[in-house]
C-alpha cells in the first residue's frame, strides 16, 4: 500500500539524515519501524506525511508511493487528503483549543462537513474520557487523555493509514497497554493500516506484522515481526535482553556497545 523507494532526506540542503531508505507497509497491517534515538524514524514518517518541508527538509532522492501515487512532492494537507495522517510523538494537542475544537480541526480536510459531528461522537464513544471533557482546553488533559485525543483527532480525517510516532513515550504501563489495545482494535475493526514507530520494541513487535530496524538513517534489517523478535541483535539492542534472556539493569550500564551485525 505504502512504499518508500530509496529515499534520501536532506535538511537545510546540507545535512543528510536518511540515505537510501526503502520500506513497504501492507494494507491492513501494522508495520513497526524500530531504531534508537536519532536513527531517522521520525524523519521517515515526516518524509511520508510531507511535513519535512516545514522543517527545511527535503526528499532529495527516491520516491514515496501510496496506492500507486507519488506522495513525496505533495504538501502535507494533500497527503492527508489522500488518506495518510501522522500522529506526532509527545502528544501534541492544540493546547489552547478545547477537546471538541481539536477534533474539529482534525476533520479539516473533510468535504462532508455535515457528518463531522457524528464522527466526533464516535470518537467520544471510543474514548469516553474525552467526552466528559469536550469543552476543556486540551492543554489541561492528562497524558493518557492527550494521547487518546491525538489519536482520535487523527481518525477525524477518515484516514486509510496512520503514522504513529512513539505512542507509548512517557506513559504509564497501564495506559500504554490501553493505547496499544486501541491500535490493535483499529487495525482489526477498521482495517486501518498503521506504520508504528517505537523505541519500545517488545511492545511494538507483539502487535506488528512486519518490522524494520533503522540505524544512522538507513534500514539495516527487516523481516516479519516474529522473526525479528528472535534476532540476536534485536534482542540485545532493542529488547534489552542479555544472553540469559533476562532484562539488563541500569547498574550494568556500559561505556561501550557490542558490535552489531544486523544479519537476519
Amino acid at each position, binding site marked *: 500500500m505504502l512504499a518508500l523507494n530509496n529515499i534520501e532526506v536532506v535538511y537545510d540542503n546540507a545535512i543528510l539524515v536518511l540515505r537510501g531508505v526503502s520500506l513497504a507497509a501492507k494494507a491492513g497491517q501494522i508495520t513497526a519501524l524500530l531504531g534508537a534515538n536519532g536513527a531517522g524514524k521520525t524523519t521517515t514518517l515526516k518524509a511520508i506525511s510531507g*511535513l519535512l518541508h*516545514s*522543517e527545511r527538509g527535503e526528499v532529495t532522492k527516491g520516491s514515496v508511493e501510496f496506492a500507486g501515487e507519488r506522495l513525496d512532492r505533495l*504538501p502535507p*494537507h494533500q497527503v492527508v487528503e489522500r488518506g495518510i*495522517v501522522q500522529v506526532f510523538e509527545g502528544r501534541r494537542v492544540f*493546547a489552547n483549543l478545547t477537546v471538541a*475544537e481539536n477534533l474539529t*480541526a*482534525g476533520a479539516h480536510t473533510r468535504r462532508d462537513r455535515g457528518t463531522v459531528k457524528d464522527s466526533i461522537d464516535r470518537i467520544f464513544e471510543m474514548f469516553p474520557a474525552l467526552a466528559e471533557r469536550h469543552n476543556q482546553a486540551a492543554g489541561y488533559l492528562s497524558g493518557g487523555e492527550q494521547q487518546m485525543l491525538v489519536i482520535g483527532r487523527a481518525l477525524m480525517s477518515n484516514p486509510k493509514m496512520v503514522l504513529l510516532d512513539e505512542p507509548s513515550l512517557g506513559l504509564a504501563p497501564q495506559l500504554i497497554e490501553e493505547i496499544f489495545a486501541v491500535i490493535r482494535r483499529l487495525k482489526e475493526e477498521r482495517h486501518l493500516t498503521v506504520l508504528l514507530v517505537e523505541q519500545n520494541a517488545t511492545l511494538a513487535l507483539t502487535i506488528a506484522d512486519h518490522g524494520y530496524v533503522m540505524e544512522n538513517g538507513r534500514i539495516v534489517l527487516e523481516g516479519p515481526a516474529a522473526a525479528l523478535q528472535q534476532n540476536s541483535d534485536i534482542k540485545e539492542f532493542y529488547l534489552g535482553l542479555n544472553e540469559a534472556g533476562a532484562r539488563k539493569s541500569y547498574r550494568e550500564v556500559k561505556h561501550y556497545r557490542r558490535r552489531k551485525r544486523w544479519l537476519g
Partner: protein
Amino acid sequence: MLDLPWRFIAILLANGLLVGSMYALVALGFVLIYKATDAINFAQGEFVMFAGFLAAGATHLAGFPWWISALLAVLGMVVFAFGLERVVLRPLLGRPIIAVIMATLGLGFVLRGVATLAFGGGTQTIPLPVGDEPVLLGPLILPPIQLVGAGVSLAFLCGFGWFFLKSRIGVAMRAVADSQQVAMAMGINVRRYFALAWALAGVVSALGGVLWGAMLGVDNQLALVGLKVFPVMILGGLDSILGAVVGGLIVGVVESLSAGFLDPLVGGGTKDFIPYLLMIAVLMVRPEGIFGRRRIERV
C-alpha cells in the same frame, strides 16, 4: 473633592480613547500575523503608510472618489500581502525571530523607497467626507475624523474577534497558531492560513492607512505610526485581539494624560516614552502581556 481640572481630564480621556482605538486597529495587524505565523511585522507602520499612499494616490492621480480609493487600497494591500508572504516570509518560516524582524524592517525600507518614488515626496491627503467642525459632546470637543476612526476600528475589532472564536476558518487559524506543525499534520494547509493572516493584516493596514492618512496626511512619516503600536500590543499581549483593544485604549489614555499633565512639568515629550515605560513595567510582571498566553518552553 480634589481640585483637578476635570473637564480637561475628560477631554484628554476622550481623546486618548479615540486615538487608542485607532492604535488598536494598527496593533490588530501585528496580532493577526503574530498569532497565525509567529512573525512580528516591523513593517506594519510602512504597511499603513503604503496603504495610505495607495488611497491618496488613487484619489489624486486617478481622481477616484474616496470610497473607491479606500477599496483599491484594501485590494492593493491584500494582493501585496499575499505576494509578500509568498516571496519573503515563507522562506523565513522556522527561522530565528531576528530573521523575521530584520526582514520586515528591511521591507519597511523598501516600502518607504518605493512609495516615495511612486507617489512623490510630499504630503498627500485623503479627503474623507468627514467634516472638520468639531463635534461637541457635553464638555467634550471631539474631532469627527477621530470619532469615525474609532468607530470603524472597534467595529472591525469585534468582527475579527467573532471570526476567530466561532468560524471554522477561525478554529483552523487558532490551530495553526497553536502549533503549525501539528496543524499541518492534520491536513490544514498552513501556508494558505499564513497567506490569509497576512491578507487580513493587509486589510487592517489598509483601513489604518485610510483612517490615519486622513487624519495625519499621507507621507513617509505616516509609517511612524507603527512605532507607536509596539507598547500597545506588548501591553495587551502579542497574541490577543482583546489585548490589542485594551492595550490600544490604555496607551491612548496614558499618552494623552501624560502629554496633558507631565509635559508641562518636565519640558515635554513624555508621551513618547511613558507607554514604553509602562510596557516594560508590565513585562517585568507579566512577560506575556495582560491578555497574552503564557508560552511553555520545551527544552
